[in-house]
């Protein structure tokens, strides 16, 4: 089982055992521009991702 990152319509599959911040950097998403959630709960960017985790990323940047 791997870790799934979901961001808008995209999904990324990565190996477990890395921090959320490292995972985001691996898929070229700026950790400053999203909030990671697991099971609807916010998690911090130093949390280690475990097998089977599904992380939904909430976009925080708005413009205009």
């Amino acid at each position, binding site marked *: 089982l791997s870790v799934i990152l979901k961001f808008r319509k995209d999904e990324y599959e990565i190996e477990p055992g890395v921090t959320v911040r490292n995972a985001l*950097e691996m898929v070229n998403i*700026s*950790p*400053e*521009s*999203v*909030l990671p*959630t697991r099971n609807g*709960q*916010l*998690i*911090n*960017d*130093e*949390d280690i991702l475990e097998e089977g985790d599904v992380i939904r990323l*909430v*976009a*925080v*940047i*708005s*413009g*205009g």
Partner: protein
Amino acid sequence: MKCRKCSQKAIINMRQHRLAMCKEHFLDWVPEQVERFIHKYQMFSRQERILIAVSGGKDSLALWDILFRLGFESDGLYIGLGIDEGIHYSEKSRQLAETFAKTRNLRLLTVEMRDEYGETIPQIAERTTRGQCKPCAVCGLSKRHIMNRIARQGGYHVLATGHNLDDEVAVLFGNTLNWEVGFMARQGPVLEANHPGLVRKVKPLFRFSEREVAAYALLRGIEYIHEECPHAVGSKSIIYKEILNQMEGQRPGAKLNYYLTFLKAKDNGLFSIHAQEQINTLSTCPSCGQPTTANGDCSFCRIMIKK
């Protein structure tokens, strides 16, 4: 990673402050800091009436929630821009703003562009040179005009907006790239009413990152519009925010430092000549009574008279 205050598991890590917090302490910390900044930057007092510009987005609703929790007397103003673009953007935004106000028994004033001016923002943009490429310029101009008008008419002492650090830094970055010193002279967390017809404007969230404000809104269970304004996609401000966030990732605190050192330079008089020049060139629009740098009608009135 544990909360700095209670050693519970942290749900947010704010690297620029070297501060991690649990939900409970983060939700206490945000309003405490807002109150500190309101006082530090002399934004408003508890005796003053505040009008909050509410868009249905996370920043303005979070601001209203915070001021409500802090016990400030504040009403909301929603401006219906008439943006649909197949996703009912304005309609959804209005519903969220109304629900927020209703559930907290707060007063929300609404202005619908279509009802009051006979046209939506995209329609105005289509017929004017100012908005031919994108309606954002017309939108900004119209919102500034209407917010000021309603605040004046309602006798509010101050108009508060939900601008966060990322918004402010993106504007500053754009102005720096082009050395728009005139714009830089009038950028800041407090914009004084330095001309008759102008209401004081404040930005109580200007020291919070967009990420922190979004975290606050999520944790408070605030229902806000998650979709981006369809016209803002690919805008310069979003591009600047992405660039600045890359810098922030490498150097935590870069955005805050950039903005605070700008404010310090401004306080030290770096832009004072330009600021005074602008005040000197302001006159009063004969049609609406709001300040303008033009001779005669202001930009908003000119656009609306051209109908």
